[in-house]
């Protein structure tokens, strides 16, 4: 029996610690406080080079805006909700909003959101599996 392969992160700002829950990581500018996803060389807000601290981003946030995608590339299941979410404490992330009916009547800007982590339904060419994140309404 093949040994279970470790999941790879879908993006480099998704961190999978050996001992603990996955989380999204941001880089905070030491000068102006701007938050970026993943690591950074310099700050595009203030121009400061270096001096970033790694921040564990919140899994709670609110829906900023969305679109409901009915036509995408071949093989991609539609409709789905493409969502931009502002996280509590800073950081804005884009992703799919799931566990809600994809209609303009049910998806509302400002609705409370949580970030959840699941195995992605796609593998890469070598058959590797990936851990991805989704948004869902927060009760």
């Amino acid at each position, binding site marked *: 029996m093949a040994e279970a392969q470790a999941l790879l992160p879908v993006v480099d700002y998704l961190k999978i610690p050996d001992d603990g829950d996955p989380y999204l990581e941001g880089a905070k500018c030491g000068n102006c406080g701007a938050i970026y996803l993943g690591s950074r060389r310099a700050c595009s807000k203030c121009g400061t080079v270096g001096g970033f601290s790694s921040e564990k981003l919140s899994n709670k946030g609110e829906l900023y805006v969305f679109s409901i995608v009915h036509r995408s590339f071949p093989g991609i299941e539609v409709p789905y909700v493409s969502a931009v979410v502002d996280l509590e404490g800073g950081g804005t992330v884009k992703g799919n909003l799931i566990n809600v009916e994809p209609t303009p009547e049910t998806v509302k800007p400002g609705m409370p959101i949580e970030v959840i982590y699941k195995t992605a339904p796609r593998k*890469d060419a070598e058959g590797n599996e990936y851990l991805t994140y989704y948004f869902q309404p927060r009760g």
Partner: protein
Amino acid sequence: MSDVYILGTDMIKFGRFPDRTVPDLGAEAALLALKDANLGIQDMEALYCGNLYQASAMVGQRILQEIGQTGIPVVNTANACATGATAFREAWMAVKAGVYDLVLVVGVEQMGKGLLGGGGGGKGIPREGLLGSGTMPSVFAEAGMEHARKYGTTFEQFAKVSVKNHHHSTMNPKARYQIETPLEEVMNAEMISYPNTKLMCSVNVDGSAAAVLASEKKARELGLGRAVRVRSSALTSDPWQERDLVMPDVNTCTRKAAKTAYEMAGVGPEDIDLVELHDCFATAEILHYENLGLCGDGEAGKMIDEGQTQLGGRIPVNCSGGLLSKGHPLGATGVANIYEVATHLRGEAEKRQVEGAKLGLTHVIGLGSACAIHVLEKVS
């Protein structure tokens, strides 16, 4: 400093030309513009050529191989959907700086089929449809939803933009489509990315447009009869915004470019008689009414409801039919907008003529982002 003038400009009727080549399409517009200026390729001192999809393939030089290899300098530009306007601006700068007296600008594109954007690529697995959407209809849907969130703009108001621009196109023989689309038809068309239906997305077409620019000295020598004065040219990239890592920002760069363009021309939005703006999606046009100062913040929905931007209204927008109906061949779009406004300023727009037009504004956005704005003025 002396002004720069458009002496000739033209475009081909946009359409689908799978059997033709990019240089061939570009050559056709180049010859039309030269003829309009009553000049020849031998008179041109430089060529500025905008094309996106063959940006590494020397399109400008290949156009000269079709119409006259005079050995002049060629600059090929690529700047997403601002590609053509960027070529125009580079040409304008060279003439303004006194380097040349007569230059040719060509914008040309041959498009593939289907959705733009969202390709992803790189290592790992494709992220389209997993981490939201990067397709253009979705990106601009989300930009529109930001306006809806702030001001309560409705799906119906966005849809009215398409009704208007499709109506305008019925008076433009060079538009890809000339078909009226009533509101119900726009709203009930196939949903691509809510709130953009298929009739609220720009049309993928092949096309080309061109212009001949002249120094003031040369323009006076050749005669100012049908000349159009370039009052200002502005180009910006997107300044930092809180969400711009995940949400391309088309607003801030437009506002910055508009401010520069109005200041350089010494005019305000109230002085402008017509606008050709970047309606790549119906949602985008609403945003740019405010970004260009055509109305106050939060008033764009009211503006479309009241018909202020239709032909005969307070400030007609996209009389050509816009990208929504005339079509959007990326590298040609910026030059085609200039052709449209210049045609009105010359009083030659026939059925869609904005009566008494003296000042017009052109605007394009290249997502990623670049914004180019030009203010043009009737000379006599």
